[in-house]
């Protein structure tokens, strides 16, 4: 056995008359990773009426790794019904060991994992329906707050509405412009390859115009705003939740629906149609840019063809769509923010969820609109 004072941690069990002696030697330093484990059954043969004592004359430096070893020893001594005389340990080790419970707590069993697809689907449906109800209720409350504001008895501050409008409108112009320009350009690229075969280059203009106005601008703008503003709303409201700021509003009796949610939803519902219109124009510009460079299309011809291809009611449909998208993104992201938990992680989860629900919801709503348009024949 290694008995050098500065060597590896060593222990040795030795039966003596009237007692069992555990000799500890060497350095017991946790970070050196050399701590031996105490074998579970090592105290099985020790007589019950004789105490286990310690000899620590050769013990070098030690830290919690020694305590951990002694704790294991103490626990197996308890199982073997043997007494451990901790007074023979160094005073500080003895005190630390006394702080530890003799019986470690039972590990909490992992939650039972049932595979119950029917129950899961049912729960999901119920939750979703419940959420739809909550969002509608919140929307109604906000709308009522909006009406109250119109007659001058509302709880919405103009300054909040203005700052939300600025964040959702002018501040988003650049990114909405860039994306819609590129979408228009891509449409023109794709169209020009096929149309050129038929020498129908000029119809690129109508392709881009109809695609942008009918679908692309409304959907792309709504997706951008869901990621940009919807995520921001959810993060802002869930942070307020974590800081007890929402509680403070409620205690003062300031209704969250009209003070906090109404300006956010109004801002999105109002700016989204305008951004849509802006997106349409920029998208057509992108289409023109590509056609002008790649195809033999004159600017005037492109302009003329665009005007020809676009009846004005196409814009109305897009306007209605983007208003609905804006309201939807605003309401759902506020709801997700309000429902979030109170930790930093919950803020991140809420923001992620708001973006996902926003994007998926916008695309799903767009599909619904497509069906409606098909039925009523627009």
């Amino acid at each position, binding site marked *: 056995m290694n008995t050098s004072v500065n060597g590896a941690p060593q222990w040795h069990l030795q039966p003596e008359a009237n007692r069992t002696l555990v000799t500890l030697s060497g350095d017991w330093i946790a970070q050196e990773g050399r701590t031996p484990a105490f074998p579970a059954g090592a105290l099985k043969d020790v007589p019950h009426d004789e105490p286990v004592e310690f000899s620590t004359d050769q013990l070098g430096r030690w830290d919690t790794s020694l305590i951990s070893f002694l704790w294991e020893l103490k626990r197996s001594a308890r199982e073997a019904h043997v007494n451990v005389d901790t007074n023979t340990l160094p005073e500080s080790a003895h005190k630390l060991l006394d702080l530890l*419970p003799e019986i470690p707590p039972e590990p909490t069993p992992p939650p039972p994992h049932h595979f119950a697809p029917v129950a899961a689907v049912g729960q999901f449906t119920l939750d979703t329906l419940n959420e739809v109800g909550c969002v509608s209720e919140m929307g109604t409350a906000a709308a009522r707050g909006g009406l109250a504001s119109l007659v001058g008895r509302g*709880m919405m*501050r103009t300054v909040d509405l203005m700052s939300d409008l600025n964040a959702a409108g002018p501040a988003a112009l650049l990114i909405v412009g860039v994306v819609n320009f590129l979408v228009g350009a891509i449409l023109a690229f794709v169209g020009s390859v096929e149309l050129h075969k038929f020498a129908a280059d000029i119809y690129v203009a109508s392709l881009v115009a109809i695609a942008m106005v009918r679908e692309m601008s409304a959907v792309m703008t709504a997706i951008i705003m869901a990621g940009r503003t919807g995520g921001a709303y959810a993060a802002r409201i869930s*942070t*307020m939740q974590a*800081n*007890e*700021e929402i*509680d*403070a*509003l*409620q*205690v*003062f*009796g*300031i209704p969250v629906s009209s*003070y906090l949610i109404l300006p956010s939803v109004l801002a999105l519902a109002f700016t989204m149609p305008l951004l849509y219109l802006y997106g349409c124009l920029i998208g057509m510009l992108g289409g023109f840019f590509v056609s002008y460079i790649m195809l033999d299309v004159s600017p005037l011809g492109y302009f003329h063809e665009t005007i020809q291809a676009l009846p004005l009611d196409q814009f109305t449909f897009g306007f209605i769509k983007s208003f609905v998208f804006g309201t939807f993104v605003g309401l759902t992201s506020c709801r997700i923010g309000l429902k979030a938990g109170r930790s930093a992680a919950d803020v991140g989860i809420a923001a992620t969820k708001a973006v996902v629900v926003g994007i998926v919801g916008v695309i799903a709503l767009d599909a619904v609109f497509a069906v409606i348009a098909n039925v009523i024949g627009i």
Partner: protein
Amino acid sequence: MNDTNTQMPSTDDRPVMISVDDVTLAFGSKVIQHDVSFRVKRGSIFAVMGGSGCGKSTLLKSMIGLLRPTHGTYLVEKDNYWAGDDASRVHIGRRFGVLFQSGALWSSMTVGENVALPMQMFTKLKPDVIRQLVELKLGLVGMLHAIDQYPSELSGGMRKRAGLARAMSLDPDILFFDEPSAGLDPITSARLDELILNLRDGLGATIIIVSHELSSLFHIADDGIFLDADQKTAIAHGSPRWLRDHCTDPMVHAFMHREQLDSSSPAGNG
């Protein structure tokens, strides 16, 4: 425990401001506190005491309208707080001022705007009158210099004082404080205590404090209740000073004297 002395004899003949009767608080099926009853006299400083996690703050939440009790009644003078609809609760709650644990200032607004918002929402005062009142309230708590600062620029103690100014913005006659001195240095904490006493004496407000800061409680509170986490109910009633000197319940005694519980008692074997 029949011989334990856990109820301070009442000599206070001031009218009752708040009565809580057999209130039970629970999250789902998990009961936090059950059958809690007490009276708060007008103009008194009432302490809700107890160890960490015993449900003090939850009780406070139910008293300011953030958590509906599963059972029991809560009267503010003659008004039954939880019996009415939202509008009646908001109406009764207009008498409340709350200082949250972290201050809970609205972070998108300056300190001055925080204090002004409730006045803008609920009064028809002109902006310059509001400004004057805001300055007054911030002056009372010694925060006038920070009127145009944002909450993120303030220290913890300053946030609490600003939160106190906001709690007072509608001149409430019942003030609720959630751990007012938690996380404050002794000097700031002592100043806050003086401020609370001055508010009570000057404005005649009834004050309910949730705290386990003993030195502060001995100094300011004149009545109180002790909640226990194991029994999940109130185990002693009386002012902190009286509980310290006369209460014979081992848990309360240990708490009031900053001692460890005797290891022979059930709580000691953890």
